């Protein structure tokens, strides 16, 4: 098979064409934080955490959506990128209501992990604290918009993997919200199959199971990735 020569953080690598920079980095233990990416789902390049510098390209590129090409020279850990990852993380925290101590996902949250990873010791921006809905109308799950970071993993897993298309996005700017069907209570959805994939895909405490009683929330996003892989094998 043909391979491409590329450099990541000064390390020469031989890689298969067609892969994204993020895939190559993950295979080579190069740590790039992500939020909207989930193996198996279409990448959207929305969270901007995975930005990298590519020599000769004047814009920062999201590594989840950019394919490797011959002789690419990529930098993933520059001071600038680290600074931007931290600002992005702070903005995530400041946008809605992320007070970890009172969250069901405390200790099992990708956003919380991200905060540790990028070395966030405090948040320099004022918390916006919009007052968002908590939708408890579904029989088994809760959707707490206050904890949502708009990564749209739920939207994509529901459409692409389950094929139900329950979730979507409405509004613009910081007023964007995840909606069920045409913005009706989740419990009244005509499309939701109650499969729970969105709950597992959700990186924060926004979607959680009602069955939670005292024990810790456990999410299994890898299950989604496995599922997609198995389905591809069946084809």
């Amino acid at each position: 098979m043909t391979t491409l020569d590329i450099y990541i953080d000064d390390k020469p690598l031989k890689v298969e064409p067609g892969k994204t920079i993020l895939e190559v980095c993950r295979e080579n233990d190069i740590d790039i934080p992500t939020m909207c990416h989930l193996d198996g789902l279409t990448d959207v390049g929305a969270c901007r955490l995975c930005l990298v510098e590519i020599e000769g390209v004047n814009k920062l590129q999201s590594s989840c959506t950019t394919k490797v090409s011959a002789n690419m020279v990529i930098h993933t850990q520059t001071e600038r990128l680290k600074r931007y990852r931290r600002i992005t993380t702070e903005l995530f925290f400041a946008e809605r209501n992320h007070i970890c101590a009172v969250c069901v996902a405390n200790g099992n949250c990708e956003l919380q992990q991200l905060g540790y990873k990028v070395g966030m010791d405090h948040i320099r921006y004022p918390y916006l604290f919009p007052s968002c809905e908590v939708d408890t109308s579904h029989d088994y799950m809760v959707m707490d918009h206050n904890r949502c970071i708009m990564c749209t993993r739920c939207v994509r897993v529901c459409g692409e993997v389950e094929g139900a298309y329950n979730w979507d996005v409405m509004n613009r700017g910081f007023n964007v919200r995840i909606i069920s069907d045409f913005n009706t209570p989740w419990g009244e959805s005509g499309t939701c199959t109650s499969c729970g994939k969105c709950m597992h895909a959700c990186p924060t405490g926004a979607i959680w199971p009602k069955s939670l009683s005292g024990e810790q929330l456990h999410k299994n996003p890898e299950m989604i990735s496995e599922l997609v892989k198995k389905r591809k094998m069946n084809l």
Partner: protein
Amino acid sequence: MNRQELHTMAIKAREQQASCKHKIGVCCGAGCISIGAEEVLKKMQEDVKARGLESEVAVVPTGCMGPCNQGPLVKYLPENTIYQKVNAASVAEFNQAQLVEGKPILSSLIFADSRTKPFINAAEDPFFHKQLKIALKDCGELNPEDIDDYLVHGGYTALSKVLFQMSAEEVIAEMKQSRLRGRGGAGYPTGFKWETVYKYVSDQKYVICNGDEGDPGAFMDRSVLEGNPHRVLEGMAIAAFAIGANKGYAYIRGEYPLAIKRIELAIKQAKKIGLLGSNILGSSFSFEVEVRIGAGAFVCGEETALIASIEGKRGTPRPRPPFPAESGLWGKPTLINNVETFAAIVPIINNGGEWYSEIGTPKSAGTKVFALAGKINNAGLIEVAMGTTLREIVYDIGGGIQGEGQFKAAQTGGPSGGCIPASHLDVKMDYEALVSLGSIMGSGGLIIMDEQSDMVDVARFFMEFCMDESCGKCVPCRVGTKMMHDLLEKIYMGSATKLDLDRLEELAIYVREASLCGLGASAPNPFMSTLRHFREEYENKIQPEVQLVKGI
């Protein structure tokens, strides 16, 4: 219809027009219509009929004539006398003076209230003679609802020339030679874009005309679509021929009902006589155009969001590459150009790329249409050669600042652009010069401000626009513009400290570099450019630092 028949049709239409001694154009652009132009048109037609002159005087609605804040405007041809602020009640007086007595009414001539001696032939007024109309050439002259009038003005001869005398490669070479750059904002060389799409091999390609025009205060594209829709269609057809597409979409924002109506009418007329559809003019080239109506989101002017919108999806941008030239509408190679870009194609084909490339500056050829607005005497729609100085635009064409005011700054490029201070009034306006001053050409919004304007307020206004119009997909823009807006508000209200300004500057660079699309990437521009040229206005509003705790 074949080539010869088109020619015959144009001759016939020309003969018919020649039989009229006078033509009266009533500006029926959206601006003039909003202040009663349709009533004036109706009265004009009635009055001419009442005088029994309908066989020698043609009364027609036209597109925008330019001096929008003086409307409703009426133009008498061949004298080229323009009257301003015409109301339906006084139509008879004008006709009596112009058509019967042959003595113009001086007090109502265009710019009669700001010029000591207004001009009977409007072309002699600096507002007009300092301009160079190429994209807008026939706009305000011909009847946009009449394809015959377009044919009289040489319409569809460029398409005919391309179909029978040129190869796709030759058309592209001509475009490259013209050095035309995209008028939608970024200024990408049009010929190179066409060549890129041409080179992708595909069973299906598309041409899209971007008529979303979401910048506040901009109305260049609207005026072109309203004033000369066939010019845009012909440009699209030529582009389609060059890249190998047979299907086009004209994406026009829903707030432009008149532009939509006129382009739809133009499509119908062109189809009827075989200038759109299968085997155009008997050639092997086929091309259809459909109109798509936008719902008024600024971000839907961004090409990937626009494509998503045509596909029926939520209008949000996606990362590039792949660019639309490779994978655009429904994954097919797609050429997307701005309305004004398409309006420049026909004259380039007719007069040659070399002719166009000699107009303007070394790096920016041709002309640019601006929507001149703000504290200026003659607001409206203008077209000037690239390299015209800001001073000429403001003082010669624009007639100077309103009242006793002094020029303070010009804002170009709307929410994605910046401000040019008085010290740079002699800047030769082109893409590079504006960028070097920290602004951009953008799509052509040009707002003139006097010393009453507070530059922090200007920055806050545009940041609010970007914040509201952010699609909300990516974090730097969705949350970053909100934070920046709140900080600007804090400074404007006088409660911010130096720390806030530092934080704002840091955020500005982050939002610019980390955002997914051009909306976020350029949202900090109004702030950064006002900070660059008017830093003292920010610093004057800042509270002195109070150090409460050491070491933080």
